[in-house]
């Protein structure tokens, strides 16, 4: 009786592994966020050289926004990213539906192809695009970027859409057909709303992938269509200035905003917090 409570307590001593894991988690999160914090703080550095702190100031924000090259490259990046998102959703969405609902003998080779796309080093893709675009004389600058970015993104979207549809009961779509809906109507009223989270996640992934890409962009872009990452990449070599940190911080803010909006949309459509995270990360 009197010994009961200490006995119970003794069965749960301080959980040493769990304690260590908690400390480890804190350290890893610090590691993940420290560099980002540095960039944000140093974007308010008013000194001429980015690495050397010289007092607080927002001068580089003005500089970044007024810089013609940055503005132009950001415009190119955003246009390319929007087109890549649309194209990837169309290609990946249709292929994903086909895999999840119309699978057959063709699925296996197709999945092997997707796997190849995912594991080919980006640098190899980049030179392949360069060679091919020169070979077929494709000189529409934006199209080069969009095609280059669309391969990997649409493969990812395909897998996300397939995963989403496979997790859903097919009988809903069959019921619509039984009740006399045309295939198009069944698609619009049943399938499309069900796969919407996957489409949103896929579009977001494709958009950010394109917006962030350096390797393929720097290979396929021609004069006049420098993307923002390509511009940043070349200025890293010539010497960092605060305007790069400022524009990066602004982009970071936009990314956060987009993520929050996407999370809210998904939450509204009835997903749990964990599902929202899973969708946003494409897992």
């Amino acid at each position, binding site marked *: 009786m009197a010994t009961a409570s200490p006995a119970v307590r003794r069965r749960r001593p301080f959980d040493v592994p769990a304690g260590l894991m908690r400390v480890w988690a804190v350290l890893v999160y610090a590691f993940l*966020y420290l560099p980002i914090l540095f960039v944000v703080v140093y974007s308010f550095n008013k000194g001429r050289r980015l690495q050397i702190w010289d007092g607080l100031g927002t001068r580089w924000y003005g500089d970044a926004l007024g810089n013609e090259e940055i503005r132009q490259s950001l415009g190119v990046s955003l246009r390319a990213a929007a087109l890549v998102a649309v194209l990837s959703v169309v290609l990946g969405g249709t292929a994903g539906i086909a895999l999840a609902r119309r699978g057959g003998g063709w699925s296996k080779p197709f999945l092997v192809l997707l796997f190849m796309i995912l594991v080919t*080093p980006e640098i190899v893709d980049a030179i392949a695009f360069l*060679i091919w675009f020169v070979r077929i004389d494709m000189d529409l600058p934006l199209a080069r970027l969009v095609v280059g970015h669309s391969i990997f993104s649409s493969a990812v979207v395909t897998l996300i859409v397939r995963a989403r549809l496979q*997790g859903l009961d097919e009988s809903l779509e069959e019921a619509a057909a039984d009740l006399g809906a045309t295939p198009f109507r069944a698609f619009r009223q049943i399938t499309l709303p069900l796969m919407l989270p996957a489409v949103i996640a896929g579009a977001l992934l494709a958009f950010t992938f394109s917006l962030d890409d350096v*390797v393929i962009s720097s290979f396929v872009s021609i004069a006049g269509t420098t993307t923002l990452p390509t511009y940043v990449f070349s200025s890293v070599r010539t010497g960092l200035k605060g305007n790069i940190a400022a524009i990066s911080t602004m982009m970071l803010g936009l990314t956060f905003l987009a*993520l929050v909006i996407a999370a809210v949309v998904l939450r509204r459509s009835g997903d749990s917090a964990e599902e929202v995270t899973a969708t*946003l990360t494409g897992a």
Partner: protein
Amino acid sequence: MTTATVDRPARRVTTPPRRRPRAPRFVLAVPASVWYLLYFLVPLAIIVLYSFGYKPASDADNAGTIGLDKLSLDNYVDTLQDEAFVSTFRSSVRVALIGTTLLFLIAFPLAYFLATRVRPRWRGLMLALVIVPFWTSFLLRTFAWRIILAPNGFVSNQLQSLHLIDSPIELLDTRTAVQIGIVYNYLPLMIFPLFVALDRLDPALREASKDLGAGRVRTFFSVTLPLAMPGIVAGLLLSFIPLMGEYVTPEILGGAQGLMAGSLVVSQFLEAQNWALGSAMAVVLVLLTMLVIAFFAVVASVIRLVLARRRHVAEA
């Protein structure tokens, strides 16, 4: 992935719906297939073709010209005989292997913690926090390390004034800086598959193991780890493959010392303008990556075979 509705058996007694004459089952995959054929398979095949070609001597500065009239293995011979190429390739493999190992060692405890010790209501937020850095600009995350590691920067000065180090940090433009940058950039890519794999394990399995008398360590090594193996392998591959082809991180953080194989390929294309040699090097890079993976796959299956035999003996 949502798995909530998967397990319910479809119990329908209605007659199957009348089938309309249908298009072939793969019709919806046609656009993507054509796209991949045109802009993935054909370009890759052309790289392989170019790798057997040569750079015409006549027009040195004409980018993209290539001789294909006599095909040979010369570019491969050149690649594999050149001391500088071979040593850079070797150091790439080393950076990628050390990187993958570090990533696993850093990510696994965290993934395990998230999957087994964090309450579900916090888990979503903690996972989102892992992913957010991954959604921020790759370049931003990389050049941040130039600020942190700068010899005359804040961190260096603080550490010196605390007398933790005697002289300024001298890591920038070395292989160590590349290693740090790479581990940092790919960490979310490693954490996520590990988490998914561990999260799918039913906690009841661990409890059953403990109820049957296995200790913590034994439960971990003979229940948790084997069951999570597919996710672990996925995580390792997802990190190792891109690490082998890394080009941006070494370019920003590594300077001349931190050169990796990707940079060599790039310089053949953008500077030397020898597309034939560059293509051969790209092919070598891919083959080498596959070779390393195959090597570890063989080692892993040998280990598994030995372990299985030992267990057999122990049980008999």
